[in-house]
């Protein structure tokens, strides 16, 4: 296990430009960011400032033009695409603005999907998915199809899916973007509990300043650069051993 003083996430001199026609449009310009273990990072910024691109680059989905992404000290872009995919499913849980489902699978099968990718046996995957559903009070919906549920329920389900493989880091890209205020607050509360009780490192991207208050670290982005980083409180003094395994037997 990596040393605790190694940042959980580190972004070094990150540059990313997109080719539009023959012109290279810079989207990320020399970004540097460190995220410690157990932090709740909220990245704020207007649309088009590059915050989603930053998130996708950290996830290993968007090859940077320059710079490095280190996860617990490991430079993820030294791995090939399949290597990063495997790494991603082991270390990250992802929640998007839109819940994307495998439509032929029902709720519990979708939640168990990341475990199936990892080659976990059917019985074990189902058991762990059921535990997560129970935790989020979705156990009655296991046999539904995700599209039959409301938007808020679907977002919560995609959190279940993100958590089922017990990842270090939860990455959330505008998770409340499609939700009404009450449902959104509910979801944010869940994230907060995950961070404080279950000791997950969370990186969330939003354009809504209302969620500043959940953050332990606030990152303001503008035009592909980090304008300001605000440390709200000291990162929690936690050890890896304190991390709660959400998929343990909860009954």
């Amino acid at each position: 296990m990596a040393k605790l003083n190694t940042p959980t996430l580190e972004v070094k001199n990150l540059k990313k430009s997109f080719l539009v026609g023959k012109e290279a449009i810079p989207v990320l310009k020399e970004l540097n960011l460190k995220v410690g273990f157990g932090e709740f990072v909220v990245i704020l910024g207007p649309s088009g400032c590059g915050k989603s691109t930053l998130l996708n680059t950290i996830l290993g989905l968007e090859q940077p033009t320059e710079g490095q992404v280190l996860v617990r000290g490991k430079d993820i872009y030294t791995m090939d695409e399949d290597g990063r995919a495997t790494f991603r499913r082991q270390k990250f849980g992802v929640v998007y603005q839109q819940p994307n489902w495998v439509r032929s699978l029902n709720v519990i099968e979708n939640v168990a999907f990341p475990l199936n990718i990892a080659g976990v046996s059917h019985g074990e995957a189902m058991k762990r998915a059921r535990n997560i559903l129970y935790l989020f009070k979705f156990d009655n919906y296991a046999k539904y199809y995700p599209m039959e549920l409301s938007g808020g329920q679907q977002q919560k389900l995609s959190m279940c899916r993100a958590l089922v493989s017990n990842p270090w880091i939860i990455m959330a890209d505008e998770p409340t973007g499609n939700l009404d205020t009450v449902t959104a607050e509910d979801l944010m509360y869940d994230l907060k509990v995950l961070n404080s009780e279950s000791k997950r490192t969370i990186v969330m991207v939003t354009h809504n300043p209302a969620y500043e208050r959940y953050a332990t670290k606030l990152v303001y982005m503008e035009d592909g650069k980090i304008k300001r980083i605000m440390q709200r409180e000291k990162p929690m003094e936690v050890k890896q051993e304190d991390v709660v395994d959400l998929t343990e037997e909860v009954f």
Partner: protein
Amino acid sequence: MKLGFIIKLSLRNLTRYKLRTFLTAGGVAISIGFISFLTALGYGLQQISTNQIANMQALQMLTIDAGNSKIVSINNDSLSKFSNILGVEKVYPMISVAGSLSLQGSKVDGIVYGKSTDALSIENPKISFGKKYSSDKSKEVIVNTSAAKKLGAANPQGLVGRELDLSMVLRPELLLNNGQPAKTVQATYRVVGILNEGNSPYVYVPLDNLKDLGVQNFSSAQVKATSKDNVDKIKVLIEHMGFKVSTVKDTVDQVNQFFSVFRAVLMGFGFIAVAVSCIGMFNTLTISLIEKTREIGIMKSLGTTKKDVRRIFISEALLIGMVGGITGLIASYLLGEALNASVYALAKSSGNNPVQIFVFPPMLIIVALLLSILISFLTGAYPSRRASRISALNALRYE
């Protein structure tokens, strides 16, 4: 990803669009069924023809004659050479001469064959009345029905036991010293059997009888090989001695050759159907790829590798192809057997020999299954490659 999960996922995807899957697999079933049906017909017709030509024993026989050669002739010397060849079981010499048969004033021209009792038992002719001659020395003759009718016997059966006068022309090459003029000999025989074959008149007499009349060389000889695998080798050796050799196996080989071409033509028709079903399958898989773009996006962002994405699509293709192929094969087998059964019933009721028109050798079944796997890989290759190369982010943005 575990193989079981991949198959489960593909099955779920396929059963989500039941009609589309059914139609695509149906296309494959029809094409595989069609091609195996036609091929089975080819095999069946081939089997019927070769069975008609020869039984197993006939395949071991070689017929030897001197052809137009002035140098070699079939005599006791050459017969012993034949029987000394490795793989030869027995040699049966035969004499055929032109002759006329007369029975109480009615007279008919025909051929007189001199055959030993051994040769006769190998040939196993269809004697409808009476029996074969008892020994190689006896003055007995077997007459075929054509000769019997031309001799004026309304009922061939009545001929058995009566005396027949034969007058035969012995050609110079049959006599001991080549160069002697042809001579005509006369002899009287007793009819012992009626042969139910042939359209022109001929009779069989014991070989030694003709020898006693002065014949020294033989017109031809039949060689029986110990097994049909030796036939080709023996043929070459005897041909090298200067004789003309023909075998039933040659004919059968030619027939087989014809039928392999015939089968290829039939399979060619089948392949047109296969090509059409390939297009249908490719179409279905490509549409399925487009529909699942977002799903591929989420699968990849959750950590599915390119290899696993490819395997999901290949397994969908394989499932359609295999289900279609097996269904088609079973359907064509059942149809073929049903037709066989009705032909069998028809043949039995009309008193003919029952035949099998459709034959499904194991090879055909294996090849048909391999073909459906091949179709799956062929049509699945492109969509699955494309799916595995889709960028997760582009796919998630895809509407």
